[in-house]
């Protein structure tokens, strides 16, 4: 272990983050006891839309749920085996298999039986998303299912037509929700949820930009526990409020040079989801004064950024801060669609170069010494184009390594071999 150069301390708001996450999963499980509604769908779904059905509407987003299962190796293995026994291939999305396995086994990762949603609501950008919930609906007795196609191209090619395609599907989705729930839709609640979502995702981007500081106030392992709130409930006020509080605390850490890792000497970034059952690797790096400041994944899965006047990345200004007042359902949906299309972690679905450029930007602006790419067999969506990203970073003279694994299926991760690979990389960086 190298010596500490900086003072460090745990986050004051850590327990609040944990409580928010626990409440989220409990609220979903218990929603129906109180006459509420529960829906499930992808973490990228337009979660602000079902908010118009009422304040007692709770969601379960599949990817973070799948990651939660992955953290529990024993349960994850049972889930995978259950999905495989139904004929599903073991190279499919590991989160999806954890989710399906939970349905098949009738077990909720947070205890008790699987809480069957009232309906499924998701978006489709990766080949697995719409099919994930198609199968989930079937496994759960054909529960109602609606999916919005958002695969309209990268943000820099957006157009009225593309936005209208997304908005019109969401408009149809609202009518569908009214039909399947028997509830009247409240546009005011939608509008508030859209404001919340823009605030949440902008704030997370702002928090990430604070990591440009040396020493970094947050390390990636800690960020995993924080960004997840955005993947659960980006449209909810309590999420935006929490991120505001977190932003203030991280700002304070920056002002007082409070480091995430006291012995920070080298800064790396990763790529794609981590192997959730092996986060000890992130602590292993720290033994050698190496801290992961984040990744396009931790930053841009939820954070919405924009290029500021000085040419560097900062949080995108939410519509409410631009003086835009949302007055109708259609306007709310259009703002939501346009805002969502600018999500950094969506751009690579159309070109690896768009992602490589963002990665190079992070390397430069966040003062990164090297990049560790997780060739993630568990997620074809985020591993798409990763080999081209590697080539582009190499071409730019950035030290890189890649390790192969799986975010959610520990059967496909070799910890010792990965450590050996990391050791070699640390030697290249001069950290070991």
């Amino acid at each position, binding site marked *: 272990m190298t010596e500490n150069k900086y003072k460090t301390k745990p986050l004051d708001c850590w327990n609040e983050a944990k409580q928010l996450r626990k409440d989220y999963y409990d609220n979903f499980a218990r929603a129906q006891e109180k006459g509420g509604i529960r829906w499930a769908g992808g973490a990228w779904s337009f979660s602000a839309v079902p908010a118009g059905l009422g304040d007692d509407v709770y969601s379960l987003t599949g990817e973070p749920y799948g990651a939660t299962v992955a953290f529990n190796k024993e349960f994850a293995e049972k889930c995978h085996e259950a999905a495989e026994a*139904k*004929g*599903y*291939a073991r*190279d*499919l*999305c590991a989160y999806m298999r954890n989710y399906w396995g939970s349905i098949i086994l009738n077990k909720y990762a947070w205890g008790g039986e699987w809480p069957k949603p009232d309906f499924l609501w998701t978006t*489709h950008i*990766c*080949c*697995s998303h*719409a*099919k994930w*919930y*198609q*199968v989930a*609906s*079937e496994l759960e007795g054909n529960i109602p*299912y*609606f*999916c*919005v*196609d958002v*695969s*309209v*191209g990268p943000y820099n090619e957006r157009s009225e*037509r*593309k936005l*209208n*395609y997304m908005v*019109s*599907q969401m408009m*149809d989705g609202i009518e569908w929700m009214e039909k399947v729930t028997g509830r009247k839709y409240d546009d005011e609640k939608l509008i508030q949820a859209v404001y919340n979502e823009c605030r949440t995702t902008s704030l997370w981007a702002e928090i990430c930009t604070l990591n440009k500081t040396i020493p970094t106030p947050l390390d990636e392992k800690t960020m995993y526990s924080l960004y997840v709130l955005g993947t659960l409930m980006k449209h909810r006020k309590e999420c935006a409020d929490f991120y505001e509080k977190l932003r203030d605390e991280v700002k304070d850490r920056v002002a007082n040079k409070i480091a995430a890792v006291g012995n920070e000497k080298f800064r790396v970034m990763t790529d794609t989801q981590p192997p959730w059952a092996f986060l000890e690797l992130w602590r292993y790096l720290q033994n050698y004064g190496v801290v992961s400041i984040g990744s396009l994944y931790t930053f841009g899965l939820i954070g919405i950024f924009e290029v500021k006047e000085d040419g560097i990345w900062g949080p995108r200004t939410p519509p409410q801060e631009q003086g835009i007042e949302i007055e109708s359902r259609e306007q709310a949906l259009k703002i939501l669609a346009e805002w969502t299309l600018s999500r950094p972690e969506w751009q690579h*679905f*159309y*070109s*690896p*170069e768009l992602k490589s450029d963002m990665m190079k930007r992070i390397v430069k602006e966040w003062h990164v010494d090297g990049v560790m790419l997780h*060739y993630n*067999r568990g997620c*074809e*969506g985020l*591993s*798409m*184009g*990763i*080999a*081209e990203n*590697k*080539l582009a970073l190499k071409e730019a003279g950035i030290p890189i390594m890649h390790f192969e694994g799986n975010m959610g299926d520990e059967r496909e991760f070799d910890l010792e071999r990965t450590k050996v690979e990391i050791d070699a990389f640390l030697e290249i960086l001069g950290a070991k």
Partner: protein
Amino acid sequence: MEQRLFEKFHEWYENRHQYAKEWKERTGGKVLGYFCTYAPEEIIYAAGVLPVRILGSHEAQSFTEPHIFAMFCPLCRDCLAQGLQGRYDYLNGIMIAQCCLHMRQAFTSWQKHIPQEYSYYLYMPHGIQTPRAYPYLRGELEDFKKSLEEWTGKKITNQDLDHAIAVYNENRRLMKQVYDFRKAKNPKLTGLEAMEMVVSSQMTDKEEHNQALKKLLKELPGRKLSRKTGTRLMVLGSEDDDVEFLKMVESLDATFVIEDHCTGSRYFWNEVIPQEDRLGAIAARYIDRPACPSKDWPKRTRLPHILKLAKDYNVEGTILIQQKFCDPHELDIPAIRSSLETNGIPTYFLEFDVTVPVGQFKTRVEAFLETFQLPTDLF
């Protein structure tokens, strides 16, 4: 006689590059490579450009290792390998109609590493079951048309589109007529011949292909195959132009009488229904065609379609093949197996790679075929 009827298609299939080069020389036109059969070929053809499908060569290779992570399907890697080896060096451009993540990587790596004068990513919707997809795709086709006009310097007129639609519809109609001969008790063509006929149409000028089809249709009624039909099989799943596999299965006591592949019926099953708005009509054709699994949601429209094929072609058993790591098909296969088996059609699953272990597969297929010979009641 048996051999000669399909010889032209076989030649085209085998010598696809030579054909395209000669076509270029003969016509002075441009050739555009496309990566997925959702490509609206009619518009390309109307621009005077020859659309050719980029497919692999079924050879083991390592050219793509630096470009595509090995967990993606062998087909996308095989396709890119062809480009990296310069086998498509005659192409003037490439395009993709948005399909699965796998093929999109072959396209984007090709764009980056293989010089070409034109490339186009058409944002073909995945949500083909929403009515909102029709106007959206129509607009995207309008953009594509404009882009082709700028590239070729040629205005695509309504007349050009009408002609292209007529040629393509005729091709579809003629191939469907040929397929009718597969319904017979003793089909007049094998599965391999059908595959080569369909895939060659993806690589040749359709007018020329239509001439060959018309000639074939004149002679086909009189054709008598000396081989035994054996078990009537359907083959389903990922793209399949694996000649060795089809040949091997049909060397046993079996015939492929129908398939649901983008190298088979799925490619040509429905026509463009002409309307005043030509691009709207083309958009509707591609949205309404038998779906690729990556676009078949929220409803499973493939199941009734496959069951109908099985019924119409009197299928006794099905071989489900899947390119290794092909997620869209992996996501459909359990539902398809269950549906077929519930309807009394036995299934057998095989996972494909860029090459297939023919010997091992032969043993497995033989075992599957033997199940059709067993008495239903032993006692």
